């Protein structure tokens, strides 16, 4: 991995978050997030557990409903009542910590399901596309395997292919390597890096600091439901400004 190939962000914000609050009962998970994410940015979100990283990600595609505030994706307000959330989700791919492949379907059928049912794509076309995507994530030979017969890393790569099948403009990654055995982490990160190099806009919640440094174009540090620091990954690593960021990095980097 190297830094030279990072694509330059450009244009109108892909995602705009304004004053986002989220409460779970009495617990304030998010206490006012303001963010603009530009096309082609690879935003790595880090922070201690319980800081609201995943909640923020899940609010972006409407898996969690915002208590207060607004989220816009390509100008469409996700948080508005009259917005067809399914239309928005077609543009926003998401990959989960626990893979969530559909266990009753083969790898290729996992990938073709949404294009067939949502896009009403022709079966031949969907299959062709799915095979190309599986090939891209290095699993063309596993097209007819059921998830139970794939390793965690392979399952997660199928999940990435599945999300890409809807031609999303943004990809959300929610701790996608946290449930993997250590030796399987890099194959998933490599796939994500490839995607970043192609210019995909990405929000990546992760604990993989190597990935953050090498692939991220922007790093956001969150703590207690707020964005504490936001900027260039290398700069934040080398010279964190906020005491909480300093504390966090000193704890995790002391083991490297």
């Amino acid at each position, binding site marked *: 991995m190297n830094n030279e190939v990072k694509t330059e962000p450009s244009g109108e914000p892909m995602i705009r978050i304004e004053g986002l609050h989220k409460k779970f009962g009495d617990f304030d998970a998010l206490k006012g997030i303001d963010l603009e994410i530009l096309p082609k940015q690879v935003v790595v979100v880090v922070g201690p557990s319980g800081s609201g990283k995943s909640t923020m990600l899940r609010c972006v*595609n409407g*898996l969690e409903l915002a208590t207060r505030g607004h989220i816009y994706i390509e100008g469409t307000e996700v948080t508005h009542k009259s917005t067809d959330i*399914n*239309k928005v*989700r*077609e543009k*926003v*791919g*998401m990959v*989960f910590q*626990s893979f*969530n*492949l*559909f*266990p*009753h379907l083969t790898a290729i059928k996992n990938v073709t*399901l*949404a294009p067939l*049912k*949502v896009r009403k794509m022709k079966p031949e076309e969907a299959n062709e596309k799915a095979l190309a995507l599986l090939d891209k994530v290095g699993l063309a030979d596993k097209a007819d395997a059921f998830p139970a017969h794939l390793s965690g890393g392979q399952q997660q790569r199928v*999940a990435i292919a*599945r*999300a890409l099948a*809807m031609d999303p403009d943004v990809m959300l990654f929610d701790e996608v390597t946290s449930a993997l055995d250590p030796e399987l982490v890099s194959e998933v990160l490599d796939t994500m890096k490839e995607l970043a190099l192609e210019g995909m806009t990405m929000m990546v919640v992760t604990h993989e600091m190597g990935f953050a440094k090498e692939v991220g174009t922007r790093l956001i540090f969150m703590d207690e439901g707020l964005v504490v620091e936001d900027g260039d990954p290398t700069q934040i690593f080398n010279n964190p400004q906020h005491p909480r960021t300093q504390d966090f990095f000193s704890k995790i980097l002391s083991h490297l």
Partner: protein
Amino acid sequence: MDGPDPGLGLGAENISEFEKPDVSGWAKASLIMGILGVTVFPFVGAILAIVFARIAKKQILRTDLGGDGLATAGQALGVVGLLLLAIGIFILIRHESLKAFVNDFFNWETIKFWWPKVGRAFLTTLKLAVVSEFFILIVGLLVALLRLSKVKTFRVLATIYIDVIRGLPLILQIFIVYFGLFYLGLNFSRFTSGVVALTLCYSAYEAEIYRAGIESIHKGQMEASRSLGMTYMQSMRYVVLPQAIRRVIPPLSNEFIMLTKDTALVAFIGLSEAFLVGKEGMGKAANVTPLVGVALFFLLVTIPAMRGVQYLENRLSKGD
């Protein structure tokens, strides 16, 4: 195994792995007594076989002697010997009662006349069960989906329906449906009323089974599906239900077996299914043989079905 570990080869259990253990003498004696007990030496032989087997089993527990299988065989032979003896004595001294028993339960004349009639009526029983089950599978699923709906009104209505139905005896529901429809001026046949009542009742139970199945599917499945842009209904249909239904096939099949048996209750509104015909036969022939026929027809269907469910359960649990 490469041979005894020189460092550990002290315990008796190590030796027993490499040399065949001696067989308990009591176990051998038990088997021999068992064989004598069922042949030439009844009663005493059987008793001794059981006693020797007990001694052998205690001895095997305390020491590392073999022969547990022999002792069990001797014990079993002993029990069989005693049973045979009891039956023999019963036949000898109660010859007349046995004849009466056969005349009542397996009367040949009655069999010839009534079992074919009962068999034909059993077809009605099966038809009632199958037609009802067809509707129950659909209505049950719909009720389960309402029960899980985000709309509170649907949830409440479904819950009330399920609770009321499950809180009432089936026979009462059958009567209320049949006579209720009748006094409403709706002239439904007995068969149709039976189908309506059974569907009404069993849908409530099967809805709960469907619900448990759907709830057992990890919520990540729904989330992943929704995040791909699929609607709630599409996600249910293509992602959650295929997995949930696979899990509920065994319990739903058990319900179907129960339903098959419960169709007999529809006899009480006068539908000529197997039980009613059997009951009529019992009255006319003045023996219970027609009802024994009904029982045999039911078992012919229910026992293979139960075995089938067991087989399915084993296969599905391996698949997970």
